[in-house]
């Protein structure tokens, strides 16, 4: 196994664990996740849209996990990770910079770390995803 492949597989497993953790936690705490979205100071959306979002986000994260495991869908999974992480980063930045107050941080990993630390985590994961993307295309070409 080459060095490139080891890096690629290692990052794949890190992303797999993070997204599986995020998806399962959101599904286990569905009610809490919905409440957090409803009470968000920057998501002024109708209740139905929030309900759909509360299901759609963990389902997309499950798709990421399936895509990372299933070799055929790995590229799609990587693109989906980039889209999700950029969305999360924009949301977290809005909470930190625009929102009149920081809402309850009581769901999943955010309960253990603050919003600022969460932002650093997301930026770190996005950087890892770009490294993953680079090695994916490098390995595919060789």
């Amino acid at each position: 196994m080459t060095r490139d492949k080891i890096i690629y597989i290692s990052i794949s497993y890190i992303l797999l664990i993070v997204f599986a953790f995020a998806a399962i936690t959101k599904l286990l705490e569905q009610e809490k996740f919905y409440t957090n979205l409803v009470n968000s100071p920057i998501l002024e959306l109708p209740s139905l849209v929030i309900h759909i979002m509360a299901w759609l986000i963990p389902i997309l994260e499950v798709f990421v996990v399936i895509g990372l495991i299933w070799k055929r869908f790995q590229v799609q999974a990587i693109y989906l990770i980039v889209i999700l992480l950029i969305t999360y980063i924009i949301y977290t930045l809005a909470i930190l910079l625009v929102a009149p107050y920081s809402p309850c941080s009581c769901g999943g990993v955010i309960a253990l770390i603050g919003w600022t630390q969460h932002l650093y985590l997301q930026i770190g994961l996005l950087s890892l995803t770009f490294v993953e993307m680079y090695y994916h295309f490098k390995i595919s070409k060789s």
Partner: protein
Amino acid sequence: MKIKMLLPVLALIFATGMSFTTVSATDQQVTGYINGPNGWESVNVDCVMGSEDCKVRFLPNPTEYQVFATEDESTPLNSASGEIIDL
């Protein structure tokens, strides 16, 4: 081939275990807000679901305060038991 399947399965088991641990560790952590004598302040309570009002009081003071999800009175939190939470 077996190792190729085994590693993702182990990673998934690991993530599932972590999720359950985190969920139970943070089960009681819901931050609500009360309009107390000194204005709005946050309280950590366990009252998300239910049909009763979620209320707290600061013993020995008997005054009860309704808990809200945000710092305004438009989003009162509910409780399953309706018991007043002593802080």
